[in-house]
């Protein structure tokens, strides 16, 4: 029986849209505004925003500046304290803390990390970075806990806070550096505030979730014991939610570390971030890598430390033990610090590490990259041209413009074009008969996209298509949200840049998702692969992304291909992690049952594990998209022309409006993508039905 008759109304809408797209393309010579949104229709959103900013600075500016003067005091104090302490004291105390929290392996790693900072000669810079994080993390945790508790206690507050969190995490920090600078004045405080703004949202989410998940029995027990509301909150709810809250602390810490470099762009901090920027400007790969490793190591140590605290078994309250017994580790840490400090007074090199003992192997790293560039120039060019001609350009400007004798080796003659159209039509008809109008329309749209290219499709068609997709994946609300957000991009006049960003980021996400799921699959089957991938993933996620740009540029030159690779290097990590996690956590009973039925290993993977793991893998796609969009701004440093570049133009011109419009645009695209992939994940979950979870 034909599926044609069984098609749903919205499938027909899609078909109509495809036809409308073709009609718009046919009309583009007559009515250009149908394809390219006219400049005259652009609303002056940027001037409005700038006017608002001036008003803000005039009215509330003095208050903000007083605030930043206050915050500067503890920051300077911590920085001076850390720089005053002999290195041996910092080493001893940190190693002991790591041992007490997570055992000797982390202690060993911590000791190695501290020694590394010392040996390559970045001690002062490292301590300055540590000071920034030491202030920003507690502040972010405090703010996050407060807002999380507020969101938990009041539904109205939650409705305000939730969308705000999405914005905070998706608007690139570069976009709000300028307003912060204007409001708070120049100096390290600006970096601190940018860091807090970016780092607190995970804390809010985890606090709210943790508080909401406290079981009702625990609450009842508390009530029966006669707890007042405040006791109930502080003595019952908060301790019970502690594990989730500590997970929030962990994520907040990681986010704060990822802001260290961006904070340095303003300046005022002679820290590791500044060192990375300085070496990056000179394109000194080895030097910037050595500095970048410091941040990666710090972040990894803090990650393991806070993660260990989050998963540790809750200790018994130890009611009537003495003061010393309860704070034994704290006393030991202080004692150890004092002892080593005294020793450092006697033995000078324990206090100030001698410069002659520093080792700085940057030159070897630089030579390695140069060797690669010189020896493999031919291969590198081949890879790049191939990627350009057969993948990137067709998506960007379409086959109609891409196929030339220089690129594909032949002319795209009218005959060949007719062949392409005939092939596409045949495929569409086949799909219409076998799979229904919906699928057929999707294929038709893809065929049009490949022929004309994403950047040359009419904006009304793309807007309508995205809105329809939103409706299908998330209902009416998502459809309205999508239409409003994309509408903003159109009337604000950044639609062409947005499409360039979507093209670059979309391609990078698709490629890294495919690659990541493949690697994750291997890692779930072979422990050796998993063990080899983990340190690579950790490094890619914690290393400042600027550092990896330089070797990529040296090898693949300035341009979109390098940007694509840079985005992929960062976005592939969540795809790998989620895929491996999902496949490894398929319920054991199911696997056992399947094995009993005589499944081979391959059948087990493809027929049982993969379908069951799909919802979680889709969440991985969601994260891949988020990471990809986050990387867009940084990728603009190697020469792209999307919204990321607009953010820099705004920063360079001191134009608040331009930067924030581009930043909001990226946030909107991220949010739409987030809701849509969550919708897909939900659909998969529902299709599977409730699975037995362990």
């Amino acid at each position, binding site marked *: 029986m034909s599926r044609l008759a069984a098609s749903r109304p919205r499938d027909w809408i899609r078909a109509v849209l495809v036809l409308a797209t073709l009609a718009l393309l046919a009309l583009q010579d007559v009515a250009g505004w149908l394809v390219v949104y006219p400049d005259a229709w652009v609303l002056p959103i940027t001037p409005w925003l700038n006017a608002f900013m001036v008003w803000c600075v005039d009215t509330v500016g003095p208050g903000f500046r007083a605030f930043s003067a206050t915050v500067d005091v503890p920051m300077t104090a911590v920085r001076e304290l850390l720089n005053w302490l002999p290195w041996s004291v910092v080493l001893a105390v940190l190693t002991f803390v790591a041992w007490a929290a997570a055992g000797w392996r982390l202690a060993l790693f911590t000791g190695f990390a501290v020694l590394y900072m010392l040996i390559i000669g970045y001690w002062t810079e490292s301590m300055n970075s540590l000071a920034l994080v030491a202030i920003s993390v507690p502040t972010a945790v405090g703010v996050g806990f407060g807002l999380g508790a507020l969101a938990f206690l009041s539904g109205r507050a939650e409705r305000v806070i939730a969308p705000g969190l999405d914005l905070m995490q998706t608007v690139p920090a570069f976009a709000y550096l300028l307003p912060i600078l*204007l409001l708070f004045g120049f100096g390290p405080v600006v970096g601190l505030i940018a860091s807090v703004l970016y780092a607190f949202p995970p804390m809010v989410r985890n606090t709210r979730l943790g508080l909401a998940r406290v079981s009702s029995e625990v609450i009842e027990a508390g009530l029966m014991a006669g707890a007042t509301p405040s006791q109930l909150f502080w003595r019952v709810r908060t301790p019970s939610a502690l594990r989730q809250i500590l997970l929030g602390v962990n994520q907040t810490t990681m986010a704060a570390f990822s802001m260290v470099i961006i904070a340095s762009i*303003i*300046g005022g901090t002679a820290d590791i971030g500044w060192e990375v920027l300085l070496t990056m*400007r000179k*394109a000194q790969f080895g030097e910037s890598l050595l500095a970048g490793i410091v941040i990666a190591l710090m972040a990894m140590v803090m990650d393991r430390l806070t993660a260990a605290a989050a998963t540790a078994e809750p200790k018994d309250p130890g009611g009537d033990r003495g003061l010393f017994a309860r704070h034994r580790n704290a006393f030991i840490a202080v004692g150890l610090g004092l002892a080593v400090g005294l020793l450092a007074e006697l033995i000078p090199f324990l206090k100030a590490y001698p410069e002659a003992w520093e080792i700085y192997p940057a030159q070897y790293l630089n030579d390695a990259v140069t060797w690669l560039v010189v020896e493999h120039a031919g291969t590198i060019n081949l890879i790049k041209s191939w990627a350009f001609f057969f993948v990137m350009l067709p998506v960007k400007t379409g086959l109609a413009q891409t196929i030339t004798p220089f690129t594909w080796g032949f002319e795209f003659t009218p005959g060949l074009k007719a062949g392409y159209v005939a092939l596409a039509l045949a495929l569409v008809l086949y799909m219409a008969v076998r799979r229904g109008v919906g699928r057929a329309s999707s294929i038709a749209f893809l065929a049009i996209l490949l022929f004309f290219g994403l950047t040359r499709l009419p904006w009304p068609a793309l807007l309508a298509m995205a809105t329809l997709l939103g409706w299908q994946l998330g209902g009416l609300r998502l459809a309205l949200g999508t239409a409003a957000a994309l509408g903003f991009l159109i009337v604000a006049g950044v639609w062409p840049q947005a499409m360039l960003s979507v093209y670059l980021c979309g391609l990078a996400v698709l490629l890294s998702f495919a690659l990541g799921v493949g690697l994750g699959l291997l890692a779930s089957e072979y422990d050796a692969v998993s063990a080899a991938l983990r340190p690579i993933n950790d490094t890619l996620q914690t290393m400042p992304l600027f550092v990896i740009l330089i070797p990529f*540029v040296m090898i693949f*030159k300035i*341009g979109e291909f390098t940007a694509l690779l840079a985005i992929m290097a960062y976005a592939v990590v969540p795809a790998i992690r989620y895929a491996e996690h999902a496949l490894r956590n398929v319920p054991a009973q199911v696997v056992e049952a399947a094995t009993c039925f005589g499944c081979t290993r391959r059948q087990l993977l493809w027929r049982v594990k993969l379908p069951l793991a799909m919802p979680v893998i889709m969440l991985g796609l969601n994260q891949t998209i988020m990471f990809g969009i986050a990387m867009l701004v940084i990728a603009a440093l190697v020469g792209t022309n999307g919204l990321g570049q607009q953010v820099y133009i705004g920063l360079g011109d001191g134009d608040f409006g331009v930067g924030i419009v581009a930043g909001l645009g990226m946030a909107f695209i991220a949010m739409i993508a987030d809701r849509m992939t969550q919708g897909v994940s939900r659909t998969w979950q529902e299709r599977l039905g409730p699975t037995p979870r362990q």
Partner: protein
Amino acid sequence: MNALKGMVAGSILATASVTGAGADSSDPIRIPVNEWTGQHVSAHITGTLLQKAGYTVEYVTAGAVPQFAAIAQGDLHLQPEVWTNNVGDVYPKAVESGDIVVLGQLGLQPQEGWIYPPYMNDKCPGLPSYEALYDCAQAFAAADTFPRGRLITYPADWGTRSKDVVAMIDLPFEPVAGGSEGAMIAELKSALAAEQPVIMMFWQPHWLFAALDFDWVSWDPAGGECVEESGQKRGSACGFQQASVDKIVNKDVATKWPGAYRLMEMVTVDNATQNTLMLEIDNKGRKLEEVVAEWVEANEATWSPWVEAAKAAMSS
């Protein structure tokens, strides 16, 4: 832009904190340190001389663009090396409103234009004249620009000057925005290592010229100053208007530290000085402070009049 009004508000605050005129303030003078070595040299020479005159000096790392907001607001006080070609909108507005005072040129002779490695002279006969580029665009072509030549321009946030010139003189080249200084240098380094074609908008003095060899594309002689924005065409193309490197101070410096103001008026640093010092620092890996101290010691005849003038101008 409009953000400037905000800075005005900020600097009113800063003015309020300035203690009454008369004696030079003993507060530290804050000098921004930007992202390139040449500026480090200028900043540290100026700073060392200010110390010789009896001031306390504080060096603060600052981004080349964000620093203007800080100087206008009085968070940073003086900057000996400002390249007037890539300053965005904040700087000219701040100069116009009087928050930033320009004290003339530092003495560096900047040059801007298109550079290429010497081995390209063989692949494109007729260079360095820009006329040669019309015939050998393909020698500079790459996969993403073929058959047009690939010209790396300044990053998009530094304006579109090369792109405009290419369009005006109708050169068969595709301008590709460089993204960032680091990316541009990385590209140059790797192209030179593998002897690949490259042509790029660049500027000097820059430490790169101490380490690597480059030739400059030459233009038709302009009668007087080159007018870059309009009127250029093949046969009468003058290329680029040359920038100047200015010394600037916050508007309160004249009243708060009159001696420092005087010293800033007098101080000069030329290309030769910067190039020699940069070579020591970037290529020989020596410490900035050490190299500057050496220069100061060896050139007392040059700077002692400046310091004397500063001391004379100090209100006692």
